[in-house]
């Protein structure tokens, strides 16, 4: 019932979006280009997280791994693999977007490289005279896309088409020489501006966010967090959320041997980490399970299968790039709604003293759905509420998955990663 209603309401909007075929095509093609690197990087990150991270979940709780000596050092190789794939995702994105957004009759190979180099220029930080690691990596994807489209539009306007039978090699070079220089010039001007802004904003005291424990703050920061992850501006890591109220809670809980008398039961930790992130960022685990069980699209199933394990450890990049979710409007609503509804239910349950708040620290690399279980000292009810929330999230994702499938099939649009047209079979 509701599913059909949602599909009927949203289908026109989505179709309109798909008519902007060039943007979609570029994004999807770029996603295809970088997906293998995302997958390799994420899987090696997973190996590193499970076997080679000191004091991680698998070592402390499951007594797996904890290699020392020669084998322990191989962990470094996985780190290397991650950093040279996921670690340069921003550059790859800039390359892909610039290449695919520049039409064929221009020198799109060169445009791609110019995009990558312009992106590097933008990542330079004057403060420590180095490239910003986080911009070059997966958090730089949104900048990469912007740079790519920027360079592509410069090439479209200022380059001469590549002559089909070049008289000399130099011909090809000088056909785009102006746009290359113009791209670099704009990149340099922008990077000066960006560095100025960064230097100014770094003076602002970041503790303003950390000291608040008001319910609106918690939801506001969670929304901001989800937005940043959706736009690829952050990798969904949870370290930003340690606030003073958490340590106060922990102290009180340890003194009274109880989780019920803590001073701040509602915190970002007890709501967002515990329940809003129970199925990874945006409760994407619900979507993965849904796709594995219900989806008719072969591509979706393949991506979901590869994403399942990383998603359990809160590594969401394969799904974000593979489906893709990032930048495309299909899953925006459930991506925000599912965690917020879960958090709301949890806030009610905590306020009514049905479940305790998550207070105890949890080892790194704990599967997302076990965080609240460990963080409440093994409270079964808290775990059940999380699973209940996961179910609710699946229900929230359900109509949107149907909608996406319908739009793709009805219009014979390319789905996910493959360029093959989907047809009703």
């Amino acid at each position, binding site marked *: 019932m509701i599913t059909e209603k949602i599909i009927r309401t949203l289908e026109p909007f989505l179709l309109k979006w798909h008519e902007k075929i060039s943007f979609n095509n570029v994004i999807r093609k770029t996603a295809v280009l970088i997906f293998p690197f995302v997958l390799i990087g994420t899987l090696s990150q997973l190996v590193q997280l499970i076997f080679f991270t000191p004091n991680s979940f698998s070592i402390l709780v*499951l007594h797996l791994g904890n290699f020392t000596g020669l084998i322990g050092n191989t962990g470094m190789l996985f780190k290397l693999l991650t950093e040279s794939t996921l670690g340069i995702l921003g550059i790859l994105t800039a390359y892909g977007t610039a290449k695919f957004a520049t039409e064929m009759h221009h020198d799109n190979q060169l445009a791609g490289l110019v995009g990558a180099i312009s992106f590097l220029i933008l990542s330079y930080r004057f403060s420590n005279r180095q490239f910003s690691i986080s911009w070059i990596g997966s958090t730089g994807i949104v900048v990469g896309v912007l740079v790519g489209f920027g360079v592509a539009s410069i090439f479209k306007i200022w380059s001469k088409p590549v002559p089909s039978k070049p008289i000399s090699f130099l011909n090809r070079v000088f056909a785009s020489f102006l746009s290359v220089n113009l791209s670099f010039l704009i990149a340099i001007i922008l990077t000066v501006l960006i560095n100025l802004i960064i230097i100014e904003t770094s003076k602002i005291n970041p503790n303003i966010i950390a000291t608040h424990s008001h319910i609106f703050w918690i939801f506001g920061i969670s929304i901001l967090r989800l937005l940043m992850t959706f736009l690829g501006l952050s990798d969904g890591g949870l370290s930003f959320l340690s606030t003073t109220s958490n340590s106060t809670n922990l102290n009180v809980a*340890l003194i009274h041997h109880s989780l019920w008398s803590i001073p701040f039961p509602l915190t970002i930790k007890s709501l967002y980490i515990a329940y809003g992130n129970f199925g990874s960022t945006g409760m994407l685990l619900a979507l993965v399970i849904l796709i594995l069980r219900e989806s008719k699209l072969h591509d979706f199933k393949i991506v979901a299968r590869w994403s399942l394990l990383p998603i359990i450890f809160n590594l969401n990049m394969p799904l974000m790039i593979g489906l893709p979710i990032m930048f495309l409007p299909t899953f925006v609503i459930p991506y925000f709604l599912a965690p917020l509804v879960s958090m709301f239910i949890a806030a009610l349950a905590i306020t009514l003293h049905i479940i305790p708040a998550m207070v105890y620290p949890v080892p790194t690399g704990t599967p997302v759905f*076990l965080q609240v279980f460990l963080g409440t000292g093994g409270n079964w009810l808290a775990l059940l509420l999380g699973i209940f929330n996961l179910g609710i999230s699946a229900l929230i994702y359900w109509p949107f998955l149907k909608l996406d499938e319908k739009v793709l099939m009805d219009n014979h649009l390319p789905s996910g990663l493959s360029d093959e047209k989907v047809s009703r079979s």
Partner: protein
Amino acid sequence: MKQVFKNLRWIIVSLFLIILLLISHNWAVKNKQELEQQHFSKMDPVIMIPGSNATQNRFDSLVMLLNKNSIHKHDLLKLTVQTNNKITYTGSTNLTGKHPVIVIAFTNNKDGYSNIKKQAEWLRVALEQLIIRYHFNHFDALGHSNGGLIYTYFLEHDATRLGVRVQKFMTMGSPFNLNKQSITDQTQMLADFIKYRENLPKQLEVTSVTGAQNYSTDGLVPVNSAAAEKYVFQEVVKNYTVVTVTGSNAEHSDLPQNPQVVNLVQKTFF
């Protein structure tokens, strides 16, 4: 056949999940306990033992005076160990703060070396329970009169086995040579104390408070008997300080309430 495989897969997955949950639950509970223990090991209680014929309420006025002078009120937990090792707890059983005060008294609070040995054993039983209950790994000791003797016996025989560290030890008018006036005439107890003095913790900081009404007695304990303490502690422990209190309220039983002594206790322990 395919259906069988599919079912088998689900069974394996759910078995794996259940085992994972059980292991996680185990760890979570253990982790919580460890965290609580670590937290409580910051606690450094001051454990006091009254002298002979005194009850668990012996130090009430001392703690009251201490609390009067300080911003942080010290919790007061009082234990009485019965002759059958049963222990009754009164006062604040939920200890908070860095330096709560615990008083350990004995139903059999009679004088005499044989009783002191028994009381030292009851002290060990009580400390064992306290450590399990409150997870501290070090404490400071204060013994009034015979309480100091009980502590000395405990420190020489049981302290290391218990796995706790006594950091500071204060005696108040403890008759180390019982009621003997002369130092050359050693009691069996003093001889034993000196014999086993090498067992005393090397890092112990000892303060001896002696009252004096005149040159020879504090009204009950001969000054020379209290001074015999130096043969036990001096040159074995980290440091040994002797304080003699005179003037009004320097009588043996007044020592724990004497303003100078209260001040000294405050400075030494809190």
